[in-house]
């Protein structure tokens, strides 16, 4: 079975104090720790577990500059067989649609029975590349997958819906799944493990190898663009809510609802 996993290298921002850069369209990444997108980590683990159970070959792909080799190599150390990096200055500034086009161009040339992506990315939280990619490759797909059961050339998957509800679907291979966190427990990758794959070659492919022209990728090939980043208004430390008990409770309910806290 040929499994392809698309992975992204993202900055860890939850702990960090972020600074919007001069262009106002990005953040200053100086001093930020980068790692594999959390959802993609679950996807790599899912692929490895399928391979351990049924045999096969796992190829991990990432779009980005040389630093992306870090996450590709880590995936190799985890158990992937091959890694490919798609890289070209023309790819910079690609939104989800352009990203999907780049990935589709690469994947079309590779044998694939199953393609896995994460549901969304830690940095932009867009949640669209996987499904857009499935559309471009004309594959059956399912998003937010929390369980995979392979049965020959079909599979039964669980999708995570709201409020603890799950949906069960049957898909025919080849297919694409976007993987939700919690589907498994990703194994640890040790320093020694990463050292062992340090010499493994990671193929790099650019726009011309993928037969992609400049206007298909980057800002020209994108459907959306960030005009400006700004910080949402926030107070120092906790904003203490005052008032009568009723007023406090009402204010709190409003906040909870706005923050997606009422399922």
């Amino acid at each position, binding site marked *: 079975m040929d499994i392809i996993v698309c992975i992204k290298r993202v900055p860890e921002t939850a702990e960090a104090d972020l600074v919007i850069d001069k262009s106002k369209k990005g953040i200053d990444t100086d001093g930020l720790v980068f790692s594999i997108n959390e959802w993609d980590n679950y996807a790599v683990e899912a692929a490895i577990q399928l391979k351990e159970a049924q045999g096969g070959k796992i190829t991990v792909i990432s779009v980005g500059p040389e630093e992306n080799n870090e996450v590709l190599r880590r995936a190799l150390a985890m158990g992937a067989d091959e890694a490919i990096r798609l890289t070209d200055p023309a790819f910079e500034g690609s939104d989800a649609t352009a990203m999907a086009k780049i990935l589709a161009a690469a994947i079309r040339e590779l044998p694939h029975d199953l393609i896995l992506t994460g549901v969304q990315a830690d940095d932009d939280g867009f949640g669209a590349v996987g499904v857009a990619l499935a559309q471009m490759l004309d594959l059956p797909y*399912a998003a937010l997958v929390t369980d995979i059961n392979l049965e020959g050339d079909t599979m039964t998957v669980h999708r995570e819906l*709201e409020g603890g509800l799950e*949906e069960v679907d049957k898909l025919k291979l080849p297919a694409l799944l976007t993987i939700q966190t919690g589907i498994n427990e990703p194994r640890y990758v040790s320093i020694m493990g990463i050292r062992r794959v340090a010499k493994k070659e990671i193929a790099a492919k650019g726009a011309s190898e993928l037969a992609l022209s400049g206007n298909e990728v980057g800002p020209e090939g994108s459907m959306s663009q960030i005009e400006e980043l700004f910080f949402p208004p926030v107070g120092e430390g906790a*904003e203490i809510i005052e008032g009568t008990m009723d007023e406090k409770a009402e204010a709190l309910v409003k906040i909870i609802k706005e*923050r997606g806290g009422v399922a």
Partner: protein
Amino acid sequence: MEKVAVLVEHRQNEVRDVTFEMLGKAHKLVGDGGEVIALFLGDASQKGLLDMFSPHAHRTIAYLDSALKDFEPLRYRAAFENIFENVDCQLILMAQTAFGMDLAPAIATKWGLPFTTDVVDIEVTDGNLVAIRQMYSGKVNAKVSLKPSDKVLLTVRAGAFPAEDIPKISGEIREISAGIEGDFSGRTFMKYIEAAVGDVDITQADIIVSIGRGIKDADNIPIAQELADALGGVVACSRPVADKKWLPKERQVGTSGKTVKPKVYIALGISGAFQHQAGMKNANTIIAVNKDPKAPIFGIAHYGIVDDLFKVVPTLTEKVKELRG
């Protein structure tokens, strides 16, 4: 924005709240002269749902087909062929929900609609649409513009827009029963599975009500459970509560327990010691209720109430239940 279409989200014979949130926003966008169109995909047995939302749209297009009885993106996508032939609009709104995420990017990609996702606000100035969405663990907001096009698509975050006070217009309902064509064997809906009672994985919860020593006694835990139930969330705890076996260890948040990243984390009677903070500091919104104004939890919470949780929680639960109606 003259015409905005809203894809109605429904499941298990209920129209989901986010539908009304989208309809409300659609009205704000089109203003007095425009048109809000509700798009409903389902089968004839679900016609009863139409009355739940159609009063809020100028026009409802109900695409009814037995093939559309359950949410299946491949079939819904096929239905959109017909929808795009019959419906003229500048903007389509869908929800950034399990259904929406499974469908919107496919629709947008297939028809080349510029799109962006999980928007928390939409602004239209001089005919130019700008969507606001969050990035980087919710720490940074982005203004996003779309490629100029006759039609664009946005997915909307559930809870971002109010569902109250939506205009009532009682527009027409038009049913389309044409058959959808295509091979949909690639994906087939099998069934739904309800959450098993007692199977709680707090790391997967969007809403967590967490209790600390301030709960004082195991007998008091039900008040937290009631709040969690009202919100559709789960109950978690800090270590002392798990150590006393008032809750199973699986519910413990902290360095020797679980790390959680919910949308909302409500800390009740938790002081917020370092080891606990390590397990929940990345929650999108942290709300703390504690009698002690100096409790460390207020240092990382976004919102706080300095008061007795035994007074706050019942009132809060009541208000939540009122909201849900």
